[in-house]
């Protein structure tokens, strides 16, 4: 299994039956491919939909039913649609149980930077700021490092998406919870050592007595 699928699969195990979930573009969209047996979730698209199905095959392009990336998708039974103000009333109002998104940086205080790299072209924050503030639980799903540099830091250096919102980080190296004391390494990937994870991390990891091996099967 490739790294992205591995991360997505582990994220999927965090979801509960009945959860309303918003999946960010990229790696997070893979999560819906790995839902455990008996776990049915409702996907929310911030462009105005509940009950998103898979992306349609090219050629069957109906731009009146798209995901937040602008791609035409299937609509599942029980789905519905609404305008952008209503969509963000749902998001901001705390009616999305989990949002899963990537990040450029996450820090020990739960701060997240995910929308701009200083000096590079700025694409805009889209709905990310609303999603991370509004969702009941924010899971960052990303590769542990970028070009060998840590993305998990004591303090983010890039412009923030929001302050103190991230509850959990899931990477190919492990599962980390962000707590009042700092970042706790709950699970470690097979083949990693505490030392190897710590050296790939820019914040001091708290290692609990019951550190588990990350299971994805």
């Amino acid at each position, binding site marked *: 299994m490739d790294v992205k699928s591995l991360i997505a699969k582990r994220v999927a195990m965090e979801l509960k039956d009945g959860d309303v979930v918003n999946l960010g573009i990229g790696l997070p969209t893979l999560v819906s491919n790995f839902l455990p047996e008996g776990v049915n979730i409702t996907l929310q*698209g911030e462009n105005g939909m509940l009950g998103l199905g898979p992306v349609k095959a090219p050629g069957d392009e109906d*731009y009146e039913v798209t995901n937040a990336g602008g791609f035409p998708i299937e609509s599942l039974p029980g789905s519905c*649609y609404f*305008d*952008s103000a209503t969509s963000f009333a749902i998001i901001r109002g705390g009616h999305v149980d989990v949002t899963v998104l990537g990040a450029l940086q996450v820090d020990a205080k739960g701060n997240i930077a995910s929308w701009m790299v200083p000096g590079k072209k700025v694409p*805009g924050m889209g709905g990310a700021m609303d999603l991370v503030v509004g969702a009941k639980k924010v899971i960052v799903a990303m590769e542990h490092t970028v070009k060998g540099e840590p993305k998990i830091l004591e303090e983010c250096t890039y*412009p923030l998406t929001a*302050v103190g919102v991230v509850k959990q980080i899931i990477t190919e190296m492990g599962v980390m919870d962000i707590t009042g004391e700092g970042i706790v390494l709950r699970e470690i990937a097979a083949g990693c050592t505490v030392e190897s994870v710590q050296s790939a991390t820019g914040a001091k990891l708290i290692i609990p007595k019951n550190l588990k091996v990350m299971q994805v099967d």
Partner: protein
Amino acid sequence: MNKLTTAEEAVKKVRDGDVLLVGGFLKGGSPETIIKALLETSSAKNLTVVSNDTGTTETNMIKVMQQGRVVKVLATYIGGNPVTGQMLIDDPESVILYPQGTLAEKIRCGGAGIAGFYTPVGVGTVVEKGKEKRVFEGREYLLETGLRGNVAFIKATIADKAGNCYMRGTSKNFNAIMARAADYVIAEARKIVEVGELDPELVTLPGIFVDALVQSEDVL
């Protein structure tokens, strides 16, 4: 009241210096027929465009911008339109980025007679710059104000001749709210029917909000 007209006729309402509210979400529900008329038949300049994303390289707004007629943009995501991206680099004051829910709510409030609202989104980020911060029940919120435009461009799936619009699926997006927050509203519809033919329960936007109705060429 038959509001049916042509896109060329309708865009004559756009004046120099206007604030345009342009519906759509990337290609979804984008009012391309109206934007095309603005591109080809209007000379209005010094325009401010309020749009979720200012479209993509495949849509018409980028061409209007290439004509140098757009001097300011309010948007949430501009990754699909490199001209907007370049505007932001050339003059950071010319492109104002808002969290998507904040932009949507600003427009809703503009149409609903609400002067301002307190949102928790953007607290602790660059978005809070210059805005009042206030604590309600121990949590910080930013004051955001209502936003209105001179003219709105919107797209519907089906409209009746009184302007009642049904916007199918996710094409409701900013179309449904922008039409409530502009002085003059131009709607294009993929299909136009007689009054009474549209199921009242499917009306996304009441016809009272629409001033001019045009047949969509559905160019996307």
